[in-house]
């Protein structure tokens, strides 16, 4: 071969090598771009059936696997919005899809795993994918994100690819209004009796706190004036809901009460009849005045107070930092409280235990009922798995969170007719009748302890306490402070602290008594 022939061959080889390389690189980069852009490759497609609930017909959508190696199925953003029947907004410039879910804005971003809303940011296992001109959302959204963001219940059957959406159990049915001559009555309808508290400290509004309520905020929102009520806002919090009732400026007083066996909360707002020519309203900022209220309900006298020192005997309760035992602290405080309260304004105190003996939980309630107590207060110290937690919390019974069969029992109770004949009451439901008073007592105790003793206020809470079930009287349980927190454990070991706690508890009980005895018995 000649030299010339060799160089031709070399350049031919060079071009032959470089060209495919360049082509290959171009192919790779364009393919990568395509993957990020509209031509996201599909790996599998399958049709699925969605039953959107609320009486709407079922729909068939196509799900795709778009993000290997994950086998996650994706749903098109438009199908998702249709299934949930919510508005959707797509911003192509920033590749964001926003869904209006009740009062939340839920944002998905193509290429990102996060689902962002006002309530939380939740990470999906696989990212949102841009495909065929719109974002596709992993089906995981339905099963692990949606239940946290809305009141929808979700059932996904992976065998036959069926998604059932429904309304999750809420325990507040809705609102209704009754209009009278000089008043408006707002009725909150409940599925189960809930304790409530009306806060009237803000001008021209009443804030109703519904303990243990699960609401669908949209169903309780009122935007148009109804009589003396201008509007109602509803908000769900983790263990309660707040209804903010905005009032007309004509309202001069209100009453709140529960009726229909605790299944209705009535808020009656009233205006004064105009008998004289009203004085001219001065210009300038109005002087803020809170509304005089009247509590209407059952009158309760508080004479016989049952104090329950938590744990005892074989049951040490929480072991504190430094070896302090909960059962000893609770007994010490209970004894101090008896000393403080006994004989004051004719009050009689009964202790469920006055030494280190073992007493069963049901025995304690039975004792309280036998003594015909007017009030039951169980004293405990708190504990936590880490030293960080501190402060005081007060509990009353949450009927809804406890019983599997209380609904059944209640219905049986109502249908068998036994109730009418012998005043038969299911043990589990006894405390329900006092839940309103228990909430009031809990708020008094919580407020008193946290301010008198400068303890962190962890709030009034509800839980299914065994020792409160069956108490035929207002009943609460107070967790004074944390034995697992070094500073608070030191406090709990001091006699002086026990005395101050007892003093604060006694004051709260007397305040509660005054409040209950001022209650006017009246039907709306």
């Amino acid at each position, binding site marked *: 071969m000649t030299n010339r022939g060799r160089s031709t*061959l070399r350049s031919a*080889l060079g071009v*032959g*090598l470089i060209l*495919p*390389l360049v*082509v*290959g690189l171009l*192919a790779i980069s*364009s*393919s990568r771009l395509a993957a990020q852009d509209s*031509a996201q490759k*599909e790996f599998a*497609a*399958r049709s699925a059936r969605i039953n959107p609930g609320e009486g709407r017909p079922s729909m068939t959508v196509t799900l795709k696997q778009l993000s290997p190696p994950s*086998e996650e*199925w994706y749903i098109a953003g438009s199908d998702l919005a249709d299934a949930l029947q919510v508005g959707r907004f797509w911003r192509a410039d920033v590749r964001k899809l926003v869904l209006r879910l009740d009062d939340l804005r839920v944002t998905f971003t193509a290429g990102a795993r996060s689902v962002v809303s006002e309530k939380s940011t939740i*990470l999906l*296992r696989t990212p949102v994918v841009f495909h065929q001109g719109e974002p596709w959302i992993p089906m995981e959204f339905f099963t*692990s994100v949606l*239940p*946290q963001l809305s009141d929808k219940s979700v059932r996904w059957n*992976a065998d036959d690819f069926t998604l059932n959406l429904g309304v*999750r*159990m809420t325990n507040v049915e809705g609102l209704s209004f009754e209009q009278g001559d000089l008043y408006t009555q707002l009725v909150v309808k409940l599925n189960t009796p809930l304790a409530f508290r009306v806060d009237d400290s803000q001008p021209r509004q009443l804030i109703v706190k519904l303990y243990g309520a699960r609401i669908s905020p949209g169903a309780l929102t009122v935007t148009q004036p109804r009589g003396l009520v201008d509007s109602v806002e509803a908000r769900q919090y*983790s263990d309660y809901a707040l209804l903010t009732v905005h009032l007309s400026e004509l309202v001069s007083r209100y009453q709140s009460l529960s009726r229909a066996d605790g299944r209705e909360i009535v808020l009656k707002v009233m205006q004064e009849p105009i008998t004289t020519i009203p004085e001219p309203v001065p210009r300038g900022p109005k002087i803020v005045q809170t509304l005089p209220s009247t509590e209407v309900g059952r009158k309760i006298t508080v004479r016989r107070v049952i104090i329950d020192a938590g*744990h005892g005997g074989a*049951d040490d*309760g*929480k*072991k504190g930092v430094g070896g302090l035992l909960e059962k000893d602290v609770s007994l010490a405080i209970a004894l101090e409280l008896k000393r403080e309260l006994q004989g004051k304004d004719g009050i009689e105190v009964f202790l469920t235990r006055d030494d280190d003996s073992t007493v069963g*939980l049901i025995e304690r309630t039975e004792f309280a009922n036998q003594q015909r107590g007017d009030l039951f207060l169980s004293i*405990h*110290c*708190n*504990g*936590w*798995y*880490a030293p*960080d*937690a*501190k402060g005081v*919390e007060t*509990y009353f019974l949450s009927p*809804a*969170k*406890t*019983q*599997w*069969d209380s609904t059944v029992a209640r219905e049986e109770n109502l249908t068998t007719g036994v109730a009418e004949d012998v005043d038969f009451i299911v043990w589990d439901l006894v405390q329900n009748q006092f839940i309103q008073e228990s909430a009031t007592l809990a708020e008094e105790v919580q407020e008193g302890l946290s301010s008198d003793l400068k303890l962190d206020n*962890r709030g009034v809470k509800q*839980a*299914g*306490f*065994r*020792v409160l*079930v069956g108490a035929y009287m207002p009943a609460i*349980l107070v*967790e004074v402070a*944390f034995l697992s927190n070094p500073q608070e454990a030191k406090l709990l070991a001091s006699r002086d602290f026990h005395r101050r706690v007892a003093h604060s508890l006694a004051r709260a009980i007397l305040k509660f008594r005054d409040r209950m005895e001022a209650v006017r018995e009246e039907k709306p």
Partner: protein
Amino acid sequence: MKIPRRIVTTIMAVLIVGAVAFVWEEFFHHRGSPEDLEVTEPLNEQGMRSVTLYFGGRNAEGFVSERRIITASLHRDEEVQAVVEELLQGPKSASAVRTWPEGTALRDVFYDDDLHLLYLDFNTALVSGDTGGSAMETMTLGALLRTIAVDFPEVDGVQILVNGLEVETLAGHIDCTKPFRPREWL
């Protein structure tokens, strides 16, 4: 040693053709041809699923969620077992706290399909460790029931057992004699 040019050229040509064919096959040929779609079966025993676990916040207020991948199963009790084991392992995040008494272990899981009722049987460490304090007990139950509610929304009730028997409470507070409704703990 001198290799004949013709052999070198042939080898080169074969490599180039191979490379071009590879690039074509990998990046161009597959794209946008819907007839290639294969209908695959959904997750089965061999699959994995992602689950949400709840742990306690450091100050006993609120929950901290974490994700785990578990082996998916057609048998719900196996998946529940895997999820509860993960809960017992504890959180990875430093801002979260494991909500179980020391030494707690899951002995058995049984799911009643008719009642949608889940039985979880733990060892005695659940009730005999250094428990006490309503915060501990409500958060132990809360973290468990919330996790069940989110990962197994079809479960209507959870009955807790210790050594196969019902217990009155875990630490002297919350009534455990009847099944809990997990959805109410969300």
